[in-house]
């Protein structure tokens, strides 16, 4: 299937490495992407006006339908937002008709045939774990990674249809395919806190700090995300939290296509790992053998 690539608003300027890494990995796995100039998915305006959200989302879906049979996004908030809109438009024909009449002057029409996917679904379902493992030339040396699922892809499950909402596994299995170890941690399905950013910064940070602490306690060295907003929260905001003393130990964040890209043999520089606020490049390094660690500590 050919997918229209929906980067969302924040990636091009704030997290460009996410798009770069996704395109590198997708191209290596022969997943065809089409470029369409989309608008905002509508997610940010949903708090203010549902109809504006729905119109924004529907316009994107109609644009995508023009050039591809599927749409793929690396952002879980965009994913949830677009899936929710598609659901609403299938449930409510009155809204669909009204939106289509508003789209008509733009020569756009949403019919409802579009397949909306998140990049993890494409990797897991279209490519498959075996095919991915076959391309892993340079398996990572078992870094301990906390997999952060991201709310808006997971729930509401009857709309997003991403994975089992109570016990999801696809992200963990994709992470383990790269050679990394997915640690078990209690808060893996919780919110990163970013939706409250600029609305209640204190609470937003507190939610993030709870998650970071939980992951660190479970022995994680990195947190792996596959959502633009989660990355902003666990990278940019986490750095600010460290500077402010909200948390003491950093938990560098890595985007899944970067992790996969590393295991497929791409350099961490090309994957943009050096552009993060909190450097996560060490994930690619071979781990010190326990004897080495012991000898270092003994000599010290």
């Amino acid at each position, binding site marked *: 299937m050919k997918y229209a690539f929906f980067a969302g608003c924040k990636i091009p*300027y704030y997290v460009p490495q996410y798009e770069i890494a996704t395109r590198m990995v997708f191209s290596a796995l022969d997943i065809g992407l089409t470029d369409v*100039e989309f*608008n905002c998915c509508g997610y*940010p305006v949903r708090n203010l006006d549902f109809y504006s959200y729905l*119109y924004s989302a529907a316009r994107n879906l109609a644009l995508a339908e023009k050039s591809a049979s599927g749409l793929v996004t690396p952002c879980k908030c965009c994913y949830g937002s677009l899936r929710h809109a598609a659901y609403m438009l299938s449930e409510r024909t009155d809204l669909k008709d009204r939106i289509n009449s508003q789209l008509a002057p733009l020569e756009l029409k949403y019919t409802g045939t579009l397949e909306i996917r998140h990049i993890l679904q494409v990797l897991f379902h279209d490519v498959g774990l075996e095919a991915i493992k076959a391309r892993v030339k340079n398996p990572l040396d078992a870094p301990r990674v906390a997999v952060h699922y991201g709310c808006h892809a997971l729930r509401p499950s009857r709309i997003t249809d991403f994975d089992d909402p109570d016990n999801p596994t696809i992200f963990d299995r994709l992470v383990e395919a790269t050679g990394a170890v997915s640690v078990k941690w209690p808060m893996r*399905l919780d919110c990163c806190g970013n939706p409250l950013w600029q609305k209640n910064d204190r*609470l937003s940070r*507190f939610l993030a700090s709870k998650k970071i602490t939980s992951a660190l306690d479970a022995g994680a060295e990195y947190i792996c995300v596959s959502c633009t907003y989660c990355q902003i929260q666990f990278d940019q905001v986490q750095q600010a939290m460290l500077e402010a003393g909200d948390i003491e130990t950093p938990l560098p964040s890595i985007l899944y296509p970067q992790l996969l890209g590393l295991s497929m043999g791409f350099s961490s520089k090309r994957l943009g790992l050096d552009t993060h606020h909190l450097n996560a490049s060490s994930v690619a390094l071979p781990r010190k053998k326990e004897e080495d660690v012991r000898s270092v500590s003994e000599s010290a």
Partner: protein
Amino acid sequence: MFYDVVYYISLTVFFAGVLWRIRSWFTRRVGDVAHEQTTFGRVTGVAKSVVFTLFSKQIVYVIREFFVNVMMQYKILRENTARWIMHMLVFAGFLLLFFLHVIDDTYSHPWIDGYFSTLNPWLFLRNIGAFMVLAGLGIAVYRRLTIQGLRKLTYAMDRYAIAILAIIIVSGVLLEASKIVSHRTFEEMAQTYAHPDIRIADWEDDPELEALMAYWQENYGVVFPERIEPDSEKLEWGAEVNDAFACSMCHSRPQAAFLSYGTSRAVSPVANAMTNAGAETFFWYVHFLASFIGLAYLPFSKFFHIFSTPIRLLAKVKTGSAPGSLPANIATLRAMELDACMHCANCSLRCSVGPIFETIPNQAILPSEKIGDLKHMVLNQSLPTEELLRIAEGAWICTSCHRCTDVCPAGINLQDLWFSIREELARRGYPEPYVQAMKKALAEAGPDADLPLIPHSPHGKEMKEGLLLSEQASTFTNCYNCMTCTNVCPVVACYDKPSRELGFLPNQIMHALGFGFRDQVLSSRMLWDCVTCYACQEACPQNVRVTDVLYELRNVAYQDVRLEMNDMAAKTTGEGPQTKECPMDSRRT
């Protein structure tokens, strides 16, 4: 005399206007950084930057920028070929006319060897220039009329810009055409260069004059009151007379002035009437007055971009740690950027949230209009509340995707300006609409919010029935208060005493909705601290769309802000309440 007076008045207004605009680059305060800078600091900052640039390798980049983006306008080409052709036609055509025509007496004459406005190639080039500008204007009008979105964003200032240029060019062509056909001008020229007593009415008594007239009638397009029958003998003689009186030395045949000559042929049947009615004088006045009005008004119109945009483009060159990145210069750049916009509306056509303008008809959402709002706000320290609310809505619906900055052909860092709008709004106490809605909802609950017993809200039923999106109204009534939603909520889990911090908890909100407790529900912190993680909705055993309901309640609260804003605006303008302006109402009808 009249000419000179108008000329000097318009020139004075022009220079005063330019100075006024330039002064504002150093005095206007845009955003927080500007409020920490003095005008003196800003002037010296620019001086430092200019000196630094001139005497470092930065000058290479400035020169490169000049050719690539000022002369060749690559940024426009990158965005749209038709627009580039349009702009290049107007730009190059206007430059050609400016150097070969506007300033010809003063400058071009002494500089260009053999320059004579009535000789080729100058005669021809002037028409080429006019043709280019008119063709460009034609494309501009066509684009403004046919492109979805652009048409809606075409205002008086855009129409003025096109109209004044068109009037100047068309009146110039008509002036030239009326001169071509004018027997009166012929007579005056003959009196000046041949003999002061010559009268064309006496042509029958003067065979030499008759020959010249026949020659000019046939070859130069003059239309005489009585048509002269040309024969080859007369024309041959006429050619000799034409050379003898040196007419041919100063006059190329007007066919080269293809626009004016074509026009003169078209009007030739009425040429005499036109000449007698004083068409030349009329078009002369129109042409010169329009030109002078254009000149005087230039600093106040969007034509000012012919100065401000190149300056902005050249100032954009990155100077690294150089004085270009001084806070004082950032303040100056921002102020200058407000003038560098020529309202091409490309940003609005490409804006990520631009489509929302279709559902929330607030122009402040669109970047090309937002820049005007910012200017308005910077110039007026006391704007009415509804105006600031409107601007705030536009400022925060923006997702900060930076696309407007990327596509601006003037190189304006629009995204940076939008951050400064937010700073300006925060300075005046206008937070983002989400917070605005929350504050309003919390304030309206008033003292009742602290009461343990909740009075029944009068508009409860109406609101309950209004929650229509998804099957929401029918789902929260299924709530049997099992508290699962509250128990799984990550926000509730952040507090030891959640009720004290958050007011109604999710299960209480769902339950209270069944009773229609509007104000109490909207004024619960819980509603505003919801992270929209959908844990509650996923876990609910009764399939209540908890998160979706919370979303819609925030919509309801924000609708209150918009209605209030519209009411205030309606009072100010003296019109009735514009409820239609509130799209959240109309979607339910």
